[in-house]
Every structure is written in C-alpha cells, then in structure tokens.
C-alpha cells in the first residue's frame, strides 16, 4: 500500500522508524521566502528613497536660504530676479484648504457614518456604501474640473455679497476637497462605530434610551478615537491634495492671505505647477520644490502616525 520511500532507521527498541529529517534542503521554499521578503522590504526602500530624494536637494536649498527665513518669511517669490523663499504664504494657502475641507467633511462624513452604522438597514448599507466608495475612487482631476465649472459659479451666485475676484478661489477648492474626503471620513468613522460592541448599545436600550441617544451618547463617545483618526486622516489627505487645488484655486499668486475668495497657491499647487514648467536642474527654484515637498511630507507624516495610533487604540479596546 505504501509507495513512499521510507528512510531506514532503527529505534531504541528495534523497530524501523521513518526519518524526521528534511528530505532535501527545500531550496525552492527558501528562494520563495527570500523573494517575498524582498517584496516586503521594498516598502522600506521606497520610504528611504522618498526621504533621500527630498533631503538631498533640500540640503542644497537650505545652504542658500536659512531654515528660519524659510519657515517664517512671508513672501514667496521663487522665480524672480531677486527671489524670496518665505514659505508661510503657501502654507497658509494649504491650511485654508484644510479649514474649508474639514468644515464640509466632518459634518457630512460623520452624519453619513452615523446613519450607515446606526440607522440604515443592511440592504440600504450594502447599496449606499459602494456608492460612497465610488466617490472615493473618482479621479481628482474630474472632481476639480467639475468644481471649477459648476461649483465655483454656483457658490458665487449664492454669495453675491462676497468680494469675488478672478476665476479662482481657494475657499471653493477647500469645499471641493471636503467633498472629496467625505468617503474617507465616513468609512473610517463607520468602521470605528461598528466596532463598538452590540452589548453596549443593548445596555443603553435596556435602560430605555432612544436610538438617537444611543447613537450620540453611547456609540459616538465609545468610537471617539476612531472618529478622530478619521478626521486626522482627512486632514492629511486635504494637505496633500493637488489636482483639485490646481484647477480650482489656480496655480495662482502666492500671497499671504486668508481671503477664501481669492485664488491662492498651496504647497502642492506650487510643486505641481513649478515642476511641470521648464526649470533646469540645480537651480535654487528647482531645489525649492524639494524643500516644500519635505515640509509637506513631514506634515502628513505627523498626521498619519497620529491617526494610526488612534485607530490602534480603539482596536485594542474592542478586538
């Protein structure tokens, strides 16, 4: 019956036993494991690559422009004969986008999440969640163009009292980015709220609480760290958004201004518009792309680490 080769061997008591040693070196297995390890380690190479590619030109840049001047200067005029590299105007531009984005994404995203997690029937959920995911997967170029063609004129008509000038507006860009990150905020918050154990809800219902009270006073506080993580991820995404800002706020003027009706440059818009132009390698303007990129990277990195921690926190509590 047995056709397998049985390795000879003799036990202490004299009966033949099968070998427990490896039949070969299992070289194939080792090679595959090595290749898989390489694939996993590639991500570290990528991160290193990002850091190096940002750092090396930035060092060149900061030899010519002091870090203090860069971080505190209020005039951003890289292309001029007498250039100035104060990053604050474009940082303020980015923060304005983030402000308006959060203004839209937090209420819309959170209420969508509460509805889906606490009120929606499974069938409704199964239909609507994929649609929200479609919104998340829409190309930002398409969203930007839509906002420029439809949203900007619409908002202008609705607010004739505001001092609109020119075709671009950083406020509208922020609102658009807000719509763009709604699915992200909604799905991360929804995950967090659904991770809240049913026993907690049932406990509250047993005490006579209404659905509204359970949702707002039991589920939302219990899922707080996950919901905050959703906001933080949304902020990070808004900081890094490029195409919408380029199209709606324009690659426009890098002036230090908090006026949402103006077309003001952001960090990403600066990188996107400058890199596509004809700029020769080795100039200070070219290096400035990398310095701004480094700042952008650090800002989003801080946000992401914070968000990962917060998500981990609720997972530890409820899983």
């Amino acid at each position: 019956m047995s056709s397998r080769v049985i390795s000879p061997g003799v036990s202490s008591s004299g009966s033949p036993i099968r070998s427990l040693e490896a039949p070969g070196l299992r070289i194939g297995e080792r090679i595959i494991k090595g290749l898989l390890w390489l694939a996993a380690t590639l991500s570290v190479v990528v991160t290193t690559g990002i850091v190096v590619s940002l750092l090396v030109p930035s060092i060149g840049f900061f030899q010519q422009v002091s870090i203090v001047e860069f971080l505190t200067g209020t005039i951003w005029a890289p292309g001029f004969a007498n250039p100035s590299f104060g990053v604050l105007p474009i940082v303020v531009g980015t923060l304005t986008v983030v402000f308006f984005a959060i203004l839209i994404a937090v209420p819309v995203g959170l209420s969508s999440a509460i509805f889906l997690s606490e009120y929606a029937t499974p069938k409704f959920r199964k239909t609507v969640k994929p649609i929200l995911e479609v919104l998340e997967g829409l190309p930002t170029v398409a969203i930007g163009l839509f906002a420029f063609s439809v949203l900007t004129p619409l908002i202008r008509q609705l607010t004739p009292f505001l001092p609109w000038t020119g075709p671009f507006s950083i406020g509208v860009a922020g609102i658009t980015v807000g719509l763009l990150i709604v699915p992200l905020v909604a799905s991360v918050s929804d995950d967090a709220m659904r991770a809240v154990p049913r026993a907690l809800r049932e406990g509250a219902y047993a005490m006579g609480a209404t659905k509204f009270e359970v949702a707002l006073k039991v589920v939302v506080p219990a899922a707080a760290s996950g919901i905050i993580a959703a906001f933080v991820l949304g902020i990070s995404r808004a900081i890094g958004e490029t195409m919408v800002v380029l199209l709606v706020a324009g690659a426009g003027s890098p002036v230090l201004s908090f006026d949402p009706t103006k077309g003001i440059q952001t960090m990403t818009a600066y990188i996107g518009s400058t890199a596509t132009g004809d700029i020769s390698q080795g100039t200070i303007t070219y290096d400035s792309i990398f310095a701004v990129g480094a700042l952008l990277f650090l800002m989003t990195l801080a946000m992401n680490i914070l968000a990962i921690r917060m998500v981990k926190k609720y997972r530890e509590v409820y899983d």
Partner: protein
Amino acid sequence: MPKATTGDVVSTEDQAVPTVGVTAALNEDGPAREQTVNTFELHKVNVHYGDMLAVKDVSLDIPHNQITAFIGPSGCGKSTLLRSLNRMNDLIPGARVSGDVLYHGVNMYGPKIDPVQVRTVIGMVFQKPNPFPKSIYDNVAFGPRILKMKGNLDDMVESSLRRAALWDEVKDRLKDNAFGMSGGQQQRLCIARAIAVQPDVILMDEPCSALDPVSTGKVEDLMLELKKEYTIVIVTHNMQQAARVSDLTAFFTVAAMDQTNSRTGVLVEMDETRNIFSNPKDERTANYVTGKFG
C-alpha cells in the same frame, strides 16, 4: 509539588490489556510487529509561551498502536503538550519546548529534525473540523499531492475514505464541496485526510467537542478501528470518551506557580485507563474523575 507517577508503559502479547510496570526486556525476542514499543518518550518536558510556563516537567511514555488519552481541566496544558508532539507549537511565536521529546528514541527537537517532515509522520486532527474549501476528493488528495506520493491517487483517496468509514457516504459525491457535509462527516473527512499521508501517529485535539452524540459515536468507533495501524493520542474534555476509547490515560491539572503567579499545567499521573477511573493513586485524579473538581 507531587512527583508524577509515570509507569514504564509496556504492552504484553495481549494487546488489548496493557500492563504497567513490566519492563521491555520481557518482550525483546518477539516479532517486531508485536513487540512493545514506545512511540513517544517524554522526559522532563517544559513548554513556554514567551515568559509563561505552560507545561512543567512532564515525563511520560506513549506506547505504540494504542490510544492514549490526555484529560484534565481547562488550561492544564494538555493541548499544548499534544501540539508539541508534532511540532505544531513551532508555529506560535514565542513557543519553546525544552526537555526531551523522543520519537522512537530520536529527539524530535534535535538540530537535524525538520518540523515539516515531522508532521508527515505524525498527523493531527483538530478540535473543530477544518476541511479545506474544496471538494471532498481534493481534501483527501491534498496531502499525497504536496508530498508527491507515488501511486494511483484515486486509490489512495478511496482507501483513506474507506478507512475513515466515510466512503459509502460520499463515494457518489466526491466532487462536492466539503463544506456541504455534516460536522461529523467533516471531522471524519479530516481524519481521512490525515490517514492519506500514511502517518505513524495521529494526534487528536478534542476531535468530538464540536460534534453531536451520534457523530461522536462514529468517530470513537473509528478510533478503535484505527489503533490497529496507528498510535493515537487524544486530548479530551469528555471523561466518558476517555474511558470508552483509551487504553491509557494521563491526568493533568493546573498548578499555580508561586513565584510567577501564572497557571502552569502539570502531569498528576498516568496509568491504564481503568485504573485512572476506578482506582486512581492520586487524590486529585479521584476528585476530577468523580466530578468533584473541574
């Protein structure tokens, strides 16, 4: 802590009734098949999970072609010990086995030993039936295929299913997904799957805990049939089951370790099953089997 009373377990010519305390020398001249052989000999085995000591100082022998049962309360380390017999513990990060685990005199944790090879010789059946999400045929054929066993695959599948007493129930639907079977059938399929790689030993970790009484009866009958060809070690919570099927029983309990404040499993005693249930040497065993504890 009490010393584990582990006898040198040796069976005589009368296979069904092993006697304890007779030395192997008595049978040395017998034919190999009937000769008394210990499949496993454990000497001062400790199992750690990280810093936690899960099983402490276990010494026992498991005889060839018999059914040995491990019983004891939850957390007594019986499943942990079972999993160290085919090196399934290696898969748990931080798990560490010290002491001697001898398989026919060979140290299973020796430097040359390959855990993958160990598992082809020492098979395992799990608590919850875990068929692969594939056809019944493919479930049984999986082992022979990956081990590139020679011979007719259809024949191997059929003979494995026959020996698992499942052939008549499934011969007309070998291509059906195994998930469509009842729980008891699934568990017997898992046994057939283990048999198909022609192991010497089958370890069973509470194989009936997820089954109804009728299915449990079928699996127990199967075990009694299989012990003609295989050494079987079974972990069970069910004392009736241990009494029904096993030749020998090892009783484990939980000892609270003073210094670490953790719970550690220790062997209390090992003996012929009927002695464990009718005439245990240790008071803790008596309390457990009569239901006073555990």
